[in-house]
Structures are given as structure tokens and as C-alpha cells.
């Protein structure tokens, strides 16, 4: 299944559309990305606080159980019975001492080791398995787990070179530590299924060019404008990115000029209930927006006081699920909790500043599907060539960063590729 990409440019400023729609590409992504030398977001520690607590999730197409053992260690394993491949754990979450597959009742402890096989010795000396069957060789496939400030990550590569901290790099680690600077409590979940290739979403999260153009609410109600002080940062290898903006760092007049009147309705429209947009400063900096994206399956967001993680679960070439986990801090007052719950109107499948992404991805997916192999996307805002940080937000450089690392993992880099 070797894939051959005829790159028009070495800096990923041209992306062939067929890469979003090809079966071999998708299969290779599962193998080289989700099963490759990467770490994936699994869940938050706060979701499984007690011994025996578990949660089921997905890494790419692979079902995964994350649980806490009796020593409070977090462990993760593939949710696939070693006997006949059935899901061992069928619930979204719960608490248990053993995971027992309902099919033939094979059971596994919280480390994923096979501990019970019914009728292994047969009945009254008849039947059963041969004596040489070695239970220790038939546990659930384990993931290596790494935690950073209460965020749980996992990798299928037991011998991966990088620890999770190395993999995240200083930029992503700092962002996660900022968001998770004190104990959190989970406020709830949202979920949506978007009918588009998962890479469109990974790009969308890195595309700061679209933010204030597609999401008109941001500009219309003055929540976030490209004219605010802000920028884009990446890690050294351009796997992850962070987009940020500082509160109240631009003037109305600057914004009007820059947008050339496009959709700037802030003169005529105001909210009847402005509490939706109130920003209560809670970090040592004055950023009211900080959204990071982690390769390959997560995003960590702050917009004003709305805090959440997003997880991307691939569902074939043409769809992915987006899972939003909202949180606040354990010591939030009731008023602050209510404020966060109010502000989550901004995000999610029906979010006032996020609902458009699903539509943008679906129309891009639909219309790029029939493109010939020479047709490409164009990524040149913020300049072509070198891939590096920008101190302004109108750019899609981080999208090229995504493709650069993606191509390295997939073994698709052109000769002399920009990294």
C-alpha cells in the first residue's frame, strides 16, 4: 500500500485534494499516525478519580478503555477481547474490579491481564483448553500512558522515544499547565458527528485566517477580532499550535478599517444580555482567547471563561466525531460555574462561534471529493516557504505545519521538504 504524492511545492502550500478522500491514505493514517510515534489525548484524570473508575474512548479507529487501578495508576488498553475480538467494556463509563466480556465471559483485571476463562479446564475433566494455553500471553493490548496536569495521554508505541512532555514540547505543555493550573471539575459533554475527513478539522483548528471571517459572531459582537493583539505559536516540529489573543487590545476604528466593512455590524447589533461575553480574568496573563491543537487528536480551549477539551475520533474517510468535555475549577463559586455554563453557548455543535466549522468542513469535503489528482488547496496566507510562528493571526502557516509533520510520519515528504 505505498502512496505516491506528486507534491507541487515542497512547503505544503499546495495540498492535493485526493489526500482527503483516499482509502489507502486513510489506512496508512491509522497505522503511521494513530498507531505511530505519536501520543493521543485519552481523557481527563478528573473523569476517573477513584480506583476501578473507567471510561471508554477511541484512538483513531481503535476502541480503548482507560481506567484507574487499585494503586491509583491510570492504565489504558485496547477494548477488544483477546478471545474473539468483542468489546470487553460496553459502557461509556463506570466502576468495576474486572472487565468481563459478555460473549464467553473472559475477564481482565484493571491492568488488562487475562484473569479468567470459563471452562478452561472443561467440565468434569472433559473439554476445556489444552494445558499449554498461556493466559499471560492473552491480555488486552496495552497502551503506554502519560499524564500532564490531569490530562491523560496514551500511545500504542511502548518504546516511543519521546515522553509525553517531550512530545508536547514547551509551548503545548505550558498551555496545558496554564489551563490546568489547579484541580478541575468536569461540567459535562457535547458531541457531534461531522461528515467530512478528519484532516479538514485538524486544519480548521490551525487556520486562524478563517476565524473572524467565517465566525461572524466574533466580530459582530466584538468578542474576537483579527485586529486584536495575538498570534500563532507552534512547537519545534510544527505538530501542535496555539492561537491566542489579548483582551481589549484593539480599537473599534482599527477593526473597521481592516475588515473593509465585511460583516462588521457592531454599530447596529448589541446583545440584550451581554453577560454572555463578559470576561472574568483568571490567569496571570490577559489572554481572553487561547486555543491549542495537539497532533493528532485534540484541542484545548479557553475563550473568555469557557474551558474545554475537544477530542477527534475518526469514523472512516468521510466522517469523524468531535467530543467536547467542558470543565471548570474545583473551587469555582456557584456564580462562576453559572457563568461558564452560560458561556458554553459559544462552543459545541450549536456554538455561536463554532457551529460554522462543521458546515465549512462538510462543504469542503463534498466539493473536493470529485477533484482530479492535479487539483490542490492553496495555502499562502502569511507567506509561503518557511514554516514559523507569526505575531499576527491572519495566516494559515500552521496548516502547512500540520502537513509537514503529517507527511514525515506518513513517509510522504518530498525531497528537500520544508519542515
Amino acid at each position: 500500500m505505498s502512496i505516491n504524492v506528486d507534491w507541487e511545492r515542497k512547503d505544503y502550500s499546495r495540498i492535493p485534494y485526493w489526500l482527503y478522500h483516499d482509502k489507502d491514505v486513510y489506512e496508512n493514517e491509522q497505522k503511521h499516525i494513530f498507531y505511530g510515534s505519536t501520543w493521543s489525548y485519552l481523557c481527563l484524570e478528573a473523569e476517573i478519580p477513584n480506583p476501578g473508575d473507567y471510561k471508554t474512548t477511541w484512538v483513531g479507529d481503535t476502541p480503548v478503555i482507560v481506567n484507574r487501578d487499585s494503586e491509583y495508576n491510570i492504565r489504558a488498553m485496547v477494548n477488544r477481547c483477546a478471545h474473539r475480538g468483542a468489546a470487553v467494556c460496553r459502557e461509556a463509563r463506570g466502576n468495576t474490579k474486572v472487565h468481563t466480556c459478555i460473549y464467553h465471559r473472559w475477564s481482565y483485571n484493571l491492568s488488562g491481564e487475562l484473569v479468567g476463562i470459563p471452562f478452561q479446564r472443561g467440565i468434569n475433566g472433559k473439554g476445556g483448553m489444552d494445558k499449554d494455553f498461556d493466559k499471560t500471553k492473552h491480555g488486552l493490548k496495552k497502551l503506554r500512558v502519560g499524564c500532564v496536569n490531569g490530562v491523560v495521554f496514551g500511545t500504542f508505541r511502548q518504546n516511543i522515544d519521546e515522553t509525553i512532555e517531550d512530545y508536547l514540547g514547551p509551548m503545548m505543555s505550558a498551555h496545558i499547565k496554564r489551563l490546568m493550573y489547579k484541580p478541575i471539575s468536569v461540567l459535562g459533554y457535547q458531541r457531534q458527528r461531522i461528515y467530512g475527513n478528519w484532516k479538514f478539522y485538524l486544519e480548521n483548528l490551525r487556520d486562524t485566517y478563517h476565524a473572524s471571517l467565517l465566525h461572524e459572531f466574533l466580530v459582530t459582537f466584538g468578542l474576537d477580532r483579527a485586529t486584536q493583539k495575538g498570534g500563532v505559536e507552534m512547537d519545534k516540529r510544527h505538530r501542535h499550535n496555539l492561537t491566542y489573543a489579548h483582551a481589549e487590545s484593539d480599537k473599534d476604528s482599527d477593526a473597521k478599517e481592516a475588515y473593509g466593512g465585511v460583516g462588521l455590524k457592531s454599530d447596529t447589533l448589541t446583545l440584550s444580555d451581554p453577560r454572555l461575553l463578559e470576561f472574568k480574568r483568571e490567569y496571570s496573563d490577559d489572554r481572553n482567547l487561547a486555543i491549542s491543537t495537539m497532533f493528532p487528536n485534540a484541542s484545548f480551549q479557553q475563550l473568555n471563561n469557557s474551558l474545554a477539551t475537544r477530542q477527534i475520533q475518526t469514523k472512516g474517510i468521510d466522517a469523524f466525531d468531535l467530543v467536547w468535555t467542558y470543565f471548570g475549577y474545583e473551587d469555582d463559586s456557584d456564580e462562576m460555574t453559572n457563568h461558564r455554563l452560560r458561556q458554553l453557548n459559544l462552543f459545541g455543535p450549536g456554538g455561536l462561534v463554532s457551529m460554522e466549522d462543521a458546515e465549512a468542513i462538510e462543504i469542503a469535503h463534498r466539493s473536493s471529493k470529485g477533484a482530479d489528482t492535479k487539483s490542490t488547496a492553496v495555502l499562502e496566507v502569511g507567506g509561503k516557504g518557511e514554516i514559523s510562528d507569526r505575531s499576527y493571526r491572519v495566516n494559515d502557516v500552521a496548516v502547512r505545519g500540520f502537513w509537514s509533520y503529517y507527511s514525515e510520519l506518513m513517509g510522504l515528504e518530498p525531497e528537500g521538504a520544508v519542515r
Partner: protein
Amino acid sequence: MISIQDRLAINDLFNDYGFFLDEERLEDWLELFIPECNYSIMPRENLELGLRVTLMLCENKDMLKDRIVSLQEANEFNIHRDKHLISNVKIQSSDNDKSFVTANYAIYQSDFEGNGSLFSFGHYDTQVTMVNGQFKFSKVMAVVDNWSIPHMLSTPI
């Protein structure tokens, strides 16, 4: 005991609710609520876990109005038509001028090429109040059974 007339009026309220949304008459829909209303769309999962995250939360009529203005002026969404089917309207309890009413709903959604599918289903958990001889909603919580939203969520449920 609630009178037959009141029962019919409450049923009409639910019929108007679905009708105005389907006809995209969002301002008329808004008038079915009292000023101190609470409107939310709640994933069934969160409700069962005792978690408070919603898919949409308007804590009064002003916020509901803001949501509508935003949809009309500042949001882009999939081109669609909704068709509400509301049934099993059940008056759970009633005292003085307040009634607690539940109803099941299903929303079919069609696109601009004439294709369609079941978009959302669940139930409404509501509180209905008599204001100047008319029934209005003081609370609507749409509890969504298929809470993993297909595509996206724009028009209120």
C-alpha cells in the same frame, strides 16, 4: 383538575411551538415564552450523569432573542428545513396557574437537494404558565436522546 379547555390550549401551545420553528418564524416562536423564561437543549447523557452542560442555554427571553438575532445576522449553517412531530403531550401536574408538561418530539431535516433524515429526537420537559388568559412557556428543556448532533445545531429544537 385542569379543564378540557385548558388541555386543548396547552396542546395548541405545543403545536404553535413546532409550527413556528418549522416555518422559521423565530420571532413568533419567541413570543411563546414569558420574559423570565429558561430555554435549554440538554444531552440526555449529561442529565443522567447529573451534569449541567447543555447544547444551548438561554436564561431569559433576552438571551433567547440574542440567539435568534445571531442566527439571522451572524451565523452560517447548513441549508435545511425542519419538520417537528410533537406528540404524547402529558400534563404531569398542575397547580393554580402553573403546569408541568412533557411531550415527545422528533425533528426530520431536509437539505436543499431534497434529501432528508431524522435529525433529532427526545422529549420536552416544560413549565407552562397562564399570562393574561394565554398559556406561555416559563421553561422548556429539550432533552435530546440522540445527543451526538449530526452535522451541526442551528435552529432551536
